[in-house]
Structure formats: structure tokens, C-alpha cells
């Protein structure tokens, strides 16, 4: 369900305007500046002001207070937990995304469109529901709750639950980045490699991977940003135990509710920079021209 993104070289129809007559009349200029002004005002209020606020609040007490907030052991633990979760979830979802894209883009089989819809399913589900389904399975009153307690295994309110919920939420990102890309690039080169005697793995690593590497990079980075920033689903399964099951977004909530604004916005600023980095990579990838839909 993510937005379909147009090719960068097509984003503007401005170039075609040069030869058009009657382009710079008084009314057309007025309309133009009304449109640009409205767009900028809307984005400034809704997007730029909140982004600027994150940094204004994080540095409200100065640079030292900003860096001091990361020395707090609970904050450090939250950052560690988020990094650990992403380190497990992102590689797993990357392998899944590659497998799904290979199956879907390289072969024609019955039920393909159903499979694509099912892969996109987590995007349509509320994050709260994404967390709840694991509570229903593994929570104390859940389906396997008693069995898990007898065997002293904790999933909910512990690291495995956080990882499962994050995995569910970020499940489609790599796959849906790669499927259209690989479909568009076609099978000719792979078929040539196989016919010339290369094995499947050799073909994948030497032919396919170099072709899709930029799309793959963006998929992985987007998946990572979503994994590190997931709030709703993780909030349901984590139990909010300080220093133990608090990820960065959950820690932001706790600090904010306790009026530790510098601390809350300092952690928020890290995630904001991660989001900016993600968008920068996306722009770069689009500029290379590999990512096409």
C-alpha cells in the first residue's frame, strides 16, 4: 500500500513548457504563485515546523545537556535494544524479501497475485493489531501462554516478542521494493547465465545481485528505519520495562510523559536523522536510475 513513486526524470513536466505559448500571462503567474505558496505553507506547518521543533527542543538546554541525555543508562539501554532488534529483524526480512522477489519475479505460477496481496497484508493492519496478535498467541492468557510459562520461556514482555512484532510490521518492505524492480529488469541475463552452465547461486550472486543492488539497498534501509521506529506494535508486546524492554520510541514516550523534554527530543533527534538518511539514500538510488517502476 505504500505510495507508488514516479520516476525522477518524469517528475516535472516543466521542460515541455518552454515551447508553450501564453505561459507567462498575469493570471497564470498569479495561479502559479498561489499553488506554490499554498504548498509551501501547508508543508511548513505540518512537516517543517515539527521537524525543526525536534531539534529546537533537543538543544533547548544547550549542546552539553543534549549529549548528557545519552549518558543516562536507561536511554543507552533503549538504544542498545533497538539496535539489537534491528540487527536480527532486518537481515531476516531481507532474506525473505530476496526469496519472495525471486519466486514472484522469475516465475509465472497460479496464485501469484494472492501471494503478493498477502505479503502486503501487514501494511494494511493497524500497528496495535500487529502487536496484539502475538499477545493472543504467547501472552499469559494467550493460546500458548500456559505452556510457555511451564517451560519458563517468556516471549511477551521480552525480547522475542519485540522482535516478532517488529518483524511482522516491517515484513513487506524489502520484498515490495524488489518485486517490481526484478519484474522490470526481466530474466534474459539469468537465463543466459544458466544456459551457459552457471549454477543457481552463482547466477544470483554474479548476475542478479549486481543488477538489483541499489533497489535492495533502499529496501533494506527503509526496513531498518521502520524497524527502529516502530511504536504501536512494540508498545503492545514490550511491557515497558525500563532499561530492559524499552526500545527507543517507547523510551521517548516515557521521557516525554515524565516531562524530560530534552531527553525525549534528544532520542527523537536520532530517529529523525535516521529518517533523513533514509530519504537521502532513496534520492541517491533514484538518481542512479536503477529503481524504476
Amino acid at each position, binding site marked *: *500500500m505504500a*505510495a*507508488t513513486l*514516479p520516476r525522477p526524470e518524469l517528475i*516535472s*513536466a*516543466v521542460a515541455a*513548457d518552454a515551447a*508553450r505559448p*501564453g505561459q507567462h500571462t498575469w*493570471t497564470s503567474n498569479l495561479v502559479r504563485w498561489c*499553488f506554490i505558496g*499554498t*504548498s*509551501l505553507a501547508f*508543508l511548513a506547518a*505540518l*512537516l*517543517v515546523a*515539527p*521537524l525543526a521543533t525536534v531539534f529546537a*527542543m533537543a538543544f533547548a538546554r544547550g549542546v552539553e545537556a543534549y549529549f548528557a541525555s545519552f549518558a543516562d543508562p536507561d536511554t543507552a539501554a533503549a538504544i542498545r535494544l533497538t539496535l539489537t532488534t534491528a540487527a536480527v529483524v532486518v537481515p531476516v526480512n531481507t532474506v525473505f524479501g530476496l*526469496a519472495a522477489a525471486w*519466486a514472484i519475479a*522469475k*516465475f509465472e*505460477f497460479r*496464485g501469484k497475485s494472492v*501471494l503478493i496481496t*498477502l*505479503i502486503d*497484508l501487514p501494511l*494494511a493492519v*493497524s*500497528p*496495535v*493489531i500487529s502487536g*496484539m496478535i*502475538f*499477545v*493472543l*498467541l504467547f*501472552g499469559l*492468557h494467550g493460546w500458548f501462554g500456559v505452556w510457555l510459562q511451564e517451560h519458563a520461556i517468556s516471549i511477551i514482555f521480552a525480547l522475542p516478542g519485540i522482535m516478532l512484532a517488529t518483524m511482522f510490521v516491517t515484513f513487506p518492505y524489502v520484498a515490495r521494493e524488489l518485486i517490481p524492480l526484478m519484474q522490470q529488469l526481466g*530474466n534474459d541475463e*539469468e*537465463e543466459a547465465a544458466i544456459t551457459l552452465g552457471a549454477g543457481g547461486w552463482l*547466477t*544470483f550472486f554474479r548476475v542478479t545481485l549486481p543488477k538489483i543492488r541499489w533497489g535492495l539497498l533502499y529496501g533494506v534501509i*527503509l526496513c531498518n528505519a*521502520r524497524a527502529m521506529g516502530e*511504536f*504501536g506494535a512494540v*508498545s*503492545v508486546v514490550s511491557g515497558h520495562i525500563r532499561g530492559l524492554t524499552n526500545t527507543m520510541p*517507547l523510551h521517548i514516550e516515557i521521557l516525554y510523559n515524565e516531562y524530560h523534554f530534552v531527553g525525549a*527530543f534528544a532520542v527523537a533527534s536520532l530517529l*529523525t536523522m535516521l*529518517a533523513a538518511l533514509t530519504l*537521502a539514500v532513496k534520492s541517491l538510488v533514484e538518481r542512479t536510475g536503477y529503481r524504476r517502476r
Partner: protein
Amino acid sequence: MSLRKPSVLPGFGLTLGFTTFFLSAIVLLPLAALILAAASMPWSELVRVVLSPRALGSYRLSFGASALAATINVVFGFVIAWTLVRYEFPGRKLIDALIDMPFALPTAVSGIALTTVFAQHGWIGRYLEPLGIKVAYTWLGVTVALTLISMPFAVRSLQPALLEVQRDLEDAAETLGASRLYAFRRIILPAVLPALLTGFTLSFARAVGEYGSVIFIAGNLPMKTEITPLLIVIHLEQFDYRGAAALGMVMLLISFAVLLTINLLQAWGRRRHVRAAH
């Protein structure tokens, strides 16, 4: 293997097997648990939870604010998409990249940042306060948060559609004496209608399920500023799994209905596109 067309490429069984296995384990089985949990409830209890006054109040806010946010996004999304597609101005590329920000930004961050901006002494809130407009901790705040997080979906649906509007038709209309508004109504609007509706539905779908950014800016008062996802969390925190599952089921059904609508709309848009090309 009559199920698939023959191919010289290897790895079909391995990749499809792994994909279906992993999909089932992580996505399908857990979702089935929710459906089973809701289905195993006695009918009367299910109805009592799903139609309780507090639940009805939360639907009104969740669906009302999401619909309003999606409407705002379609209107401003059209203006933004038009600006990005038709005009050249300094910073256009930067703004184009910035549109995806709500998609990459964690919802908790947008939540606390928007609350700070729209609170009584915030950068925007302080100018709205004297006008008697309270945004933070009201339904308006919920709408603002939902508008922000679902904005990219409207813009990104409209951008490609606006690119494909046939400019020669506009020129022809103008030379034949049509006014700009008339040309807009009869040429541009019909051409982008599927994209407008898709943008609305995608925005709505994203907004209905949103939790993170809303809980900071909403006052979270039962019946007034409590969204349905929050009500589910409250049920879960009281270990009322069945109540949570029942409400989750309602949301899931609505998500599926919306998903189906999106697929139908996109198919409609493609059909029209193909017809227009002939």
C-alpha cells in the same frame, strides 16, 4: 508442474517454499489467532463489546478524523502534486524528497513534535489560541496528526496521474475558448479522478490504524478523544484479550474492505489508462 509455466531458472521450489513458510509463520498464523479468538466469543458478548458506547465513540473519532484527514490530504495533496509536477522553483527537488518524510519518520517522533508545535505555547498553537482554536488534546489535534502521517499517500498517488494529463487537450480547450476553470473541470479532473480516489482511500487506510502519533496529541478522554486502537490497548492492559480481539476484528474487517476498494480503484484507473492510450 502444471501450476507454473516452465522456465530454465532454478530455485522455484526453494524460494516459493521459504516465502510461503515464512509468510504463514509470521503473518498468516498470528492473524488467524486473532480471527479465532474473536470467533470463539459468545455472540452476545461480541456484540456487547463491539457496540458499547465507548467503542462507538471511538469509531466515530477514528473514522471521522481519518475521513477528514484524507479529505484535507486529497485537496492539499492535489495542490502539492500540481506544484511539483507543473512548476519549477528553487527547492523543488528538496520538497519532493521531503514529502516521504512522514513515511520514514517514527510515529512517536511526529507525535511529540506535533503536540509541541500545536500546544498552547507552541510555534503555531500560540497564534491559534487567541482565535479560540485549540488543536492539541482535542479531535482537531487527532486530525492534524492523521493528516501528517497519511499525507505522502495522497501526493504520491496524484503525482504520476497529473504527469499523464494530456497537455494538448488543455491547449485545445484553451484555443477553443474554454476558461481555465472549465478546462480544469472537464479535462484535468476526470483524468485524475481514479488517482484522487485512490489517494483518499490510501490516506484513510493509513490513518484509521494509526496509534503512535495520535496518543500524544489526543487528550485520550473516553468518548471524546479516544481512538479505537487506543481502546484496544486499554483492553489488553486489563488482560481483557477477548474484548481486544473483538475490537481488533472490527478494525481488521474495515482494513480488508478498504484494501479491496483500493484494488478495485487501481484496476479502474488502469483500465481507463489503457482506453485512453488507444
